[in-house]
């Protein structure tokens, strides 16, 4: 039996025994507790999930945002309608730097929305599940994002809609103070029926630059409330006046954004009415997959505004009295279940996405072991996961032993937005392979498209520092020094600027600098395909005096590309740059495979482990045994015994599609 039912029964019994007590308040207290319990459970669950299940996501969201204490930043935020919400949103997004704190602030505002809805639309405790709907929908507008976090062009987006809804609720609350204050009550009583007709248009006109579409939505809610109230309480004249008022508001919702548009140059007339909403594409395209995704993304917003309008229409009409009958209980259960279902469906729960984010932070921390190990959690990894893992193993010096012991492949990315590595983790890959110009290029390209972010600034600092462009590095350090949580990072890197001789001695920079020094300058393009570009470049470009790390990276690239022709020179270069007691496992495997495919190469002087040779023979034997099977069938049979070999990768990890 559920808690609230127990409470309800206790109270019923109490009612029978207590002759001085009226029954209704006791039942109300029961519902109040129930609603508080529901909010508490909601808050704790959402906070717990965000802070402890998605900490890497929250941190990534913070790194893909920027708030700077400077008037230039303020001015650039305010040059679009709803800029104030974006500015405050950027400020609040900083706190995701500490996921526990950031999630707490976020959840606190969701709870505030619940209480405001309940208060303003006079939703009784027994129907408090209804008041939870906007908070759940707001949550869904963000938890659905997934890879959109790399592409969304909406500064402060995580908070903009939430803050916008708070603005709607507070303004509606103020409006109701005007409209429904009692005759003769202090301040608003005298002006009743006069001021509220002025408030909505004035709020819309002066609120639009600050709150954009949320000012429009607020005034529409006010119009709905006015019309609904007039039908309930007033005669024909009142209905006519309210309808006129609603018509004026409706007209202003169309006209005011256009009037204000004359003062803005950063937004097209086509979008001005939607200022403050994320810039998901409005126009459907020929791509059905893309369109389905978009409809999905807009749904929480549509439902959110619809809910607020419905509350405005029926607010105050929800019965607060009556027995807790079956209909009431069933409806509440259904609402709760639907909300939970909706929240679950709209929680982007992609394991690969989570792994990529975790790897990203491990790589920033130089925690190469974890960066590699996270890749083991993937079923079929994305190419970003594979690249991150290979970089981590290269840095750990474990590539030759472990590279093909991890899940491999190229999982499709579940996103309506077309995802390129350049935006997700390509910058990190370029940096770690010593391609500083390309890392910096994508920082700048993405800053143009999506605005500067902490992540781009940090990459830019490292790249410019290591390529000797100290003036530019100082520029980006200076910006980071004006952030709340990244100033310490910036100051640490500023020390290198003040003493550049320390750069080459810093262990963190050792491998990127060795890679960088192995290249000579050429002109080329990557066409946004980071892995293809890097693997091709590493395989084909041979410096006169490659650093040992470059020789190994080249060998890894050749193996990834399954390039039998380039394998032998790459292996030779690897031998010449490494003092080896034993050739690492996977390189032995590759050597056996390629020598078997090309018998003209003499490898008799290269020592191969007996176990590796025996395993290879077993692999070849098994191949003959399974001849005639389809590739998929063979892959299944080989997985258990040979899934961690280069041979398996060579023959069965096929059709790799890099994004």
């Amino acid at each position, binding site marked *: 039996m559920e808690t609230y039912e127990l409470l309800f029964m206790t109270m019923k019994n109490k009612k029978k025994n207590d002759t001085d007590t009226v029954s209704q308040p006791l039942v109300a207290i029961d519902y109040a507790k129930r609603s508080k319990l529901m909010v508490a459970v909601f808050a704790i669950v959402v906070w717990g999930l965000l802070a402890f299940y998605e900490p890497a996501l929250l941190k990534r969201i913070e790194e893909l945002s920027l708030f700077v204490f400077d008037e230039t930043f303020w001015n650039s935020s305010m040059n679009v309608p709803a800029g104030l919400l974006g500015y405050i949103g950027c400020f609040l997004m900083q706190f995701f730097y500490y996921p526990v704190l950031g999630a707490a602030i976020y959840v606190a505002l969701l709870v505030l929305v619940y209480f405001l809805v309940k208060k303003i639309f006079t939703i009784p405790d027994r129907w408090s599940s209804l008041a939870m709907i906007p908070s759940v929908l707001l949550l869904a507008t963000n938890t659905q994002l997934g890879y959109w976090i790399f592409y969304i062009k909406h500064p402060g987006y995580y908070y903009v809609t939430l803050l916008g809804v708070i603005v709607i609720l507070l303004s509606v609350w103020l409006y109701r103070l005007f409209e429904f204050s009692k005759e003769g009550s202090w301040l608003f009583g005298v002006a009743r029926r006069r001021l509220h007709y002025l408030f909505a248009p004035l709020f819309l006109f002066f609120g639009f630059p600050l709150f954009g579409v949320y000012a429009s939505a607020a005034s529409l809610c006010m119009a709905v409330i006015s019309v609904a109230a007039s039908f309930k309480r007033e005669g024909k004249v009142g209905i006519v006046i309210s309808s006129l008022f609603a018509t004026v508001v409706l007209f202003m919702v169309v006209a005011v954004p256009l009037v204000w548009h004359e003062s803005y140059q950063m937004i097209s007339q086509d979008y001005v009415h939607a200022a403050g909403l994320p810039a998901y594409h409005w126009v459907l395209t020929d791509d059905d997959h893309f369109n389905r995704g978009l409809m999905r993304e807009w749904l929480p917003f549509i439902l959110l505004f619809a809910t607020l309008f419905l509350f405005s229409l029926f607010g105050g009409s929800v019965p607060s009295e009556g027995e807790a009958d079956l209909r009431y209980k069933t409806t509440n259960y259904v609402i709760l279940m639907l909300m939970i279902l909706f929240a679950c469906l709209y929680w982007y729960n992609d394991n690969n996405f989570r792994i990529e984010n975790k790897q990203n932070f491990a790589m920033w921390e130089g925690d190469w072991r974890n960066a590699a190990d996270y890749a083991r959690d993937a079923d079929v990894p994305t190419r970003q996961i594979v690249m991150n893992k290979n970089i981590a193993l290269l840095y750990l010096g474990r590539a030759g032993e472990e590279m093909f012991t991890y899940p491999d492949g190229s999982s499709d990315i579940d996103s309506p937005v077309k995802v390129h590595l350049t935006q997700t983790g390509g910058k990190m890959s370029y940096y770690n392979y010593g391609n500083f110009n390309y890392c910096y290029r994508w920082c700048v390209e993405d*800053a143009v498209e999506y605005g500067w972010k902490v992540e781009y600034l940090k990459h830019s600092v490292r790249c410019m520092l290591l390529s000797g462009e100290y*003036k530019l590095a100082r520029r980006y350090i200076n910006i980071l020094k004006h952030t709340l949580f990244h100033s310490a990072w910036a100051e640490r890197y500023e020390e290198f600027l003040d003493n550049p001789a320390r750069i080459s001695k810093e262990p963190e920079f050792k491998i990127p600098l060795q890679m960088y020094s192995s290249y000579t300058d050429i002109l080329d393009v990557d066409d946004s395909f980071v892995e293809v570009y890097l693997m091709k470049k590493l395989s084909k470009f041979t410096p006169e005096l490659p650093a040992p790390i470059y020789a190994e990276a080249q060998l890894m690239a050749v193996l990834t590309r399954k390039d039998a022709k380039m394998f032998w020179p790459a292996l030779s270069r690897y031998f010449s740059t490494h003092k080896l007691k034993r050739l690492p496992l996977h390189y032995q495997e590759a050597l056996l495979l390629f020598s078997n495919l090309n018998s003209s190469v003499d490898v008799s002087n290269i020592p191969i482990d007996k176990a590796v040779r025996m395993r290879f023979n077993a692999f070849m034997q098994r191949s003959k045994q399974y001849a005639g099977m389809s590739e998929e069938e063979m892959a299944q049979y080989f997985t258990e015994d040979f899934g961690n070999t280069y041979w398996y990768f060579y023959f069965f990890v096929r059709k790799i599609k890099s994004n």
Partner: protein
Amino acid sequence: MKTRILKLFSLTLSAVLLSCGPAVPEKFGELRTLPSIYPDYKDVTIPCNIAPLTFDITTEADDYVTRLSAGDAALVVGGRSVKPSIDEWRGLLEKATGASVSVEVFTAKDGKWLLHKPFVFNVSPDTIDSYISYRLIPPSYVCYESLTISQRNLTNYDEDVIYNNMLVQTENQGQCINCHAYKNYRTDNMQFHMRQFKGGTMFVHNGEARKVDLSTDSTLSAGVYPSFNPVYDVVAYSVNTTGQIFHTKNANKVEVQDLESDVIIYDPVANTVTNVANSKNDLEVFPWWSPDGLWLYYGTAHFEVKDTANDLMTEEIMRYRDIKYDIVRRKWDPVAKTFGATDTVFAASELGKSATFPRISPDGRYLLFALGEYGCFHVWHKDADLYIYDLNTKDCRPLSEANSSYAESYHSWSSNSRWILFASRRDDTNYTRLYIAHVDAAGKASKAFLLPQQSPHFYNFFDRSYNVPEFMVEPVRFTPHEFAELARGDAQKVKYESDSK
């Protein structure tokens, strides 16, 4: 009683405010070193009508006082940021015109005040044109998003948008804008281009704006780099096929190359275009008319295919360092509308260099151009410097007084030929900023100074480059929304006339 209280309150408030004002310390030691300030305005020459030069003192100290003085006028500013008000500044400049404003910086550390070696702002009686315009663009490679062509009043800090692509472009369809130009520094004849979505050229002719499509089947592309003839009603354009490719290691980062380019003439009355120079093996770019309107200057590079690659474009990319531009000119007959033979003005290629962007001072005396090692897009070339060529004596020299060890390009002469405005990357090597320098009658420049802003640390956070700076004597009258309205409409197609001889 109330009045007395109010009076007393006012007096007290005034006394408090006055006592809070900065004052030059009575006792101080003297330093022989100049203070460190940003922007570096030490000993620059400024026009007598420029907006206040604001700066931050970057020398570390506990407290700061700065005294700016000229004759008997003085202005004392407290704090690290020195931001004189416009009225106070004008008062100072009035006293200092033809002389200088002395700047004394006092810094305090551990309770002791020190006076740094003073520096000056030399105030030239030569006024500067009141307006400039520029494109604000992130220092981008391929992507673009929000771009504006903006105008700035140099006598104060007012900046307005002339056109913003965000007014027209959509999320899916971007619009690039570029190449604003004016006839004789006035805005009743001006133009700028829009590319891709709703593309065309916004052309204002005698105060009437229209959108034209300058592309024809007989020319390489629509018009690109423009130059209004100052006397006759024609505009010269280069037409270009431009590509971008990226350095993997070089600090220049990007090469913007013309893979093909010619020069055309547009007649806005007849709405026709004519080819001027379209030789197969020559790349012609950046046309510029002489002040008398009778000579057309431009940069040209001769490029012979050596079959080192599969196609011409790949070869041009591979041999990008071999592409070197000279500055040439051709005589124009405005009656017959024909051009004479090509006359080489500055053979940079013979020196192993590349000269582009010829700009002649309105008095006809000097040719200013950008010289680098190779190529035409010197804004990305760290080695690019401004050179001045005396058209009377044919002497040529680097404008060392104004140059830096970083890229300088995109220069423009003021209407009185005494000021130059140019783009430089000296601040942080990547973001182009606008610098102004005085050039005297003998062609000698002064130290260049950064375009002043109301906030001295404005540039630290401003993430746009200033592109194609141009002087104007009046602001553009059309609003961005008026231009946007036209931009949304269809472009008027130009007609092609047979090649000019």
